[in-house]
């Protein structure tokens, strides 16, 4: 049994540690040890599901997942509907707490995205909840709910159109008191499919020659809007998401394979391009939208 320790704080950044441990593990049985997990955000939860899925598909049976029974983080995972989705991924070594309450800061619980109707369902669901969160918590104009729905739809379509594998989406608000002194909305989408390099390889790899790799593929899609489809109407989704996230002074990053590319706002110090990360299949998209500063003067 190979033990993969789950970091105490699990988010999109610390997910790399999980990917590194998973890459080291062979084809034997795997146990994800989450007993030290104290804090997790949508990027972390979805990353854990993705890592579990990779381990399950590699070994042919669900990996074990240990969590601390009764811990706040375990209750939070229940609130995010993690256990409902995790049942098909993990052999759970924890009794899921009853999910008896809802929370006003959860915009979108963990939701599998497998078909286009799934996207219709999440867009429809956030219409009701997102309006209140975006306007009251983040001080966005009332119209932002439509723009947020468009972002949500486009990132989810990325799973179906390019990954050819299951994916998940989730969104929640947090107070980033130390880092930013403001509330933020975190939207995470991940899949374990072919990734940007795999999606673009047939149509674009040749022209990049030996420069072709995960980082080049990400740059091609993220910066230049390249897509595997010959149709000139394609490839707009990511470009338009970036534009809207910039308008809201937000951050967006995409991790795929061994690279991560990001649009970095002034308040963040994430590198715009990271290479040689621990390999992980598919694509993980992470968007952070900060609360707008209200000028009371």
């Amino acid at each position, binding site marked *: 049994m190979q033990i993969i320790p789950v970091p105490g704080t699990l988010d999109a950044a610390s997910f790399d540690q999980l990917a590194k441990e998973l890459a080291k593990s062979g084809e034997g049985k795997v146990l994800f040890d989450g007993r030290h997990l104290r804090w997790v955000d949508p990027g972390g939860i979805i990353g854990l599901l993705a890592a579990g899925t990779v381990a399950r598909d590699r070994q042919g049976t669900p990996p074990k997942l240990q969590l601390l029974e009764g811990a706040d983080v375990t209750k939070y995972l229940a609130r995010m509907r993690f256990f409902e989705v995790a049942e098909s991924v993990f052999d759970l070594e924890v009794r899921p707490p009853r999910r008896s309450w809802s929370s006003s800061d959860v915009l979108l619980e963990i939701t599998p995205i497998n078909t286009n109707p799934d996207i219709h369902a999440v867009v429809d669901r956030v*219409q009701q909840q997102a309006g209140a969160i975006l306007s009251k918590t983040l001080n966005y104009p009332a119209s932002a709910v439509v723009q947020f729905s*468009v972002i949500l739809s486009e990132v989810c379509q990325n799973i179906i159109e390019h990954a050819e594998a299951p994916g998940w989406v989730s969104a929640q608000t947090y107070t980033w008191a130390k880092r930013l002194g403001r509330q933020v909305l975190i939207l995470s989408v991940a899949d374990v499919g072919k990734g940007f390099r795999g999606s673009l390889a047939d149509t674009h790899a040749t022209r990049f020659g030996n420069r072709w790799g995960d980082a080049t593929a990400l740059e091609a899609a993220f910066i230049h809007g390249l897509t595997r489809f010959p149709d000139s109407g394609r490839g707009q989704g990511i470009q338009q998401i970036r534009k809207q996230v910039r308008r809201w002074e937000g951050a967006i990053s995409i991790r795929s394979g061994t690279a991560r590319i990001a649009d970095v706002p002034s308040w963040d110090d994430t590198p715009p391009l990271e290479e040689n990360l621990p390999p992980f299949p598919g694509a993980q998209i992470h968007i952070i939208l900060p609360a707008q500063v209200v000028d009371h003067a």
Partner: protein
Amino acid sequence: MPDFEVDPVSIDVGRLVRRNVASLYSSLVTRPTGQAVRLAIENVLAEEAGPVSLSVIDLSHVTVIDFSCADEVVAKLLLRFLEDDRPRDAFFVFRGIRELHRDPIEVVLERQTLAAVSETESGAYEVIGSTSWEELKVWQALEGRGRVKPKEVHDLVPGNGVEETLGSLVRRRLVFRNPLSGEYQALSDLLHCLT
């Protein structure tokens, strides 16, 4: 009524998407949804319209439209009826494009160098998408006049090349040219004649 037969067709996209695609939603999201809506519009035109038609595509009841869907419902629809092998001469006026829908629609139009006539909330008409300065100037002048006879074309705006610009607007389906009288007609004027 115009002296040449043009069939008016009114298409409520919100109703169409609920009827054809997703019974519970009026969100125009995802590319397959857009494709289904565009095919439904083409079917309506095939069933209800003659060789020449002017269709009002009403987006008033659409809550959300994303870029993929806008590309399918707006850009690809226009492209289909600009092709040489188009099934019929179809002209389109878009209605109910709220400020929130405008960005995805303008982006997909500009990306494909397309333009469309849109009725604003106040009932005025505008061109959205990609047009040259000359096209916009001539289109606005014709919109103000409603229609012009061939011999009045040079009075439409000062300067040369007005006829060529009108020809371009006709080819782009932003202006209707009556094949019998040769008159150039704003789509808004044609719409008022038909309804």
